[in-house]
């Protein structure tokens, strides 16, 4: 199972955990699995029509999925998936 790191804003859905495990061969499947284990957790990650929210960034092994396969990005059990809200960079 892949490791999914959660931002503070999603942790209440997962009992306060900073990281959880989830199953799936693609990011889409993984998010579906996450939702089945922790209902409501993907509400802030996906829009109503199932796309990634523009203020949310998802990385597989630190690479932004929007430049891999977006929701069809392949996920391996050894991978780490990180979810982070978009914030202003420094400077």
């Amino acid at each position, binding site marked *: 199972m892949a490791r999914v790191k959660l931002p503070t804003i999603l942790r209440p859905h997962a009992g306060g955990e900073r990281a959880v495990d989830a199953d799936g061969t693609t990011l889409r499947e993984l998010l579906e699995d996450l939702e089945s284990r922790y209902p409501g957790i993907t509400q802030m990650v996906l829009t109503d029509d199932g796309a990634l929210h523009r203020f949310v960034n998802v990385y597989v092994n630190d690479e932004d999925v929007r430049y891999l396969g977006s929701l069809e990005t392949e996920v391996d059990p050894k991978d780490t998936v*990180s979810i982070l*809200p978009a*914030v202003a960079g*420094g400077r």
Partner: protein
Amino acid sequence: MPRTFVCDPGPRGAPMRFDDVLDAIGDTPLVGLPSLSPPGVRIWAKLEGQNPTGSLKDRIAKAMVEAAEDSGELTPGRTILEPTSGNTGIALAMVARRKGYGLTVVIPDNASEERIRLLELFGAEIVLSPGDKGTNGSIEIARRLAGDDRYYMPFQYGNPANPRAHEEGTGEEIVRDLPEITHFVAGLGTTGTLMGTGRFLREHVPGVQIVAAEPRYGEGVYALRNIDEGFVPELYDPDVLTTRYSVGSFDAVQRNRELVQVEGIFAGISTGAILHAALGMAAKARKAGERADIAFVVCDAGWKYLSTGAYAGSLDEAEDALEGQLWA
């Protein structure tokens, strides 16, 4: 066959005399990294710390102020106001001093001490925003203050003069000095460097990869109350990039130390993150058996970050020291 960094030095005695410090902005050196470059790959560092105030922000400060003067938005007597975690403020302070404008900067209170001291030295008025709200917090306060007519806010996160400075400066310089470039790697903050340089390179160099290194801060910076509090700079166009990496402070500090210990280049912490992404692309190219010429941005030198604790102790200690700080 190993690729070398030997190149034609060009005519001696290229003019280096300028009427004014503002004219000395840009045209920074592109320096090879013969020791850190893996076989078959050449990595090149663009030394933006060679700009007058020591960072690439000199380019956009001059561009934004002059664009506002041309459009009539900035007139004598108005004060320039900007949310900034330091480098843009320092660059604007230099430009404001030369052109006779006042400057107010809104800066998170956890910015490094050196950055705040420098701003004070340049005569800027400083408004501190809550450090735990990061740059989002300083933008919020700046937007509120900007309602007052005496201020002109360039707003680096949405001002087209920002990427234009990189299109016309950074991008042109890179194509002139490294026409065989395969990858350009820079930090993702306002997104101006990547948008401007990226657009120029994609227009002039077929197949070039535009790679973003996004600093990943401590948890507090991402502790929004709801997702709609998120922020994406108006300048950002994701289609300009081909890859985007998230880089944490441990990797950034590690690469920073390699850069100074192996190549003799002393850089700010964000540069470590950018180098980490550049080395990632180098490894991919090497694995694929492809040649690569990777240019990455050295945003500034490390002087302003010595007090952060990132330049001493073990990497774990440095990572702990940077927790809660906006290190990029």
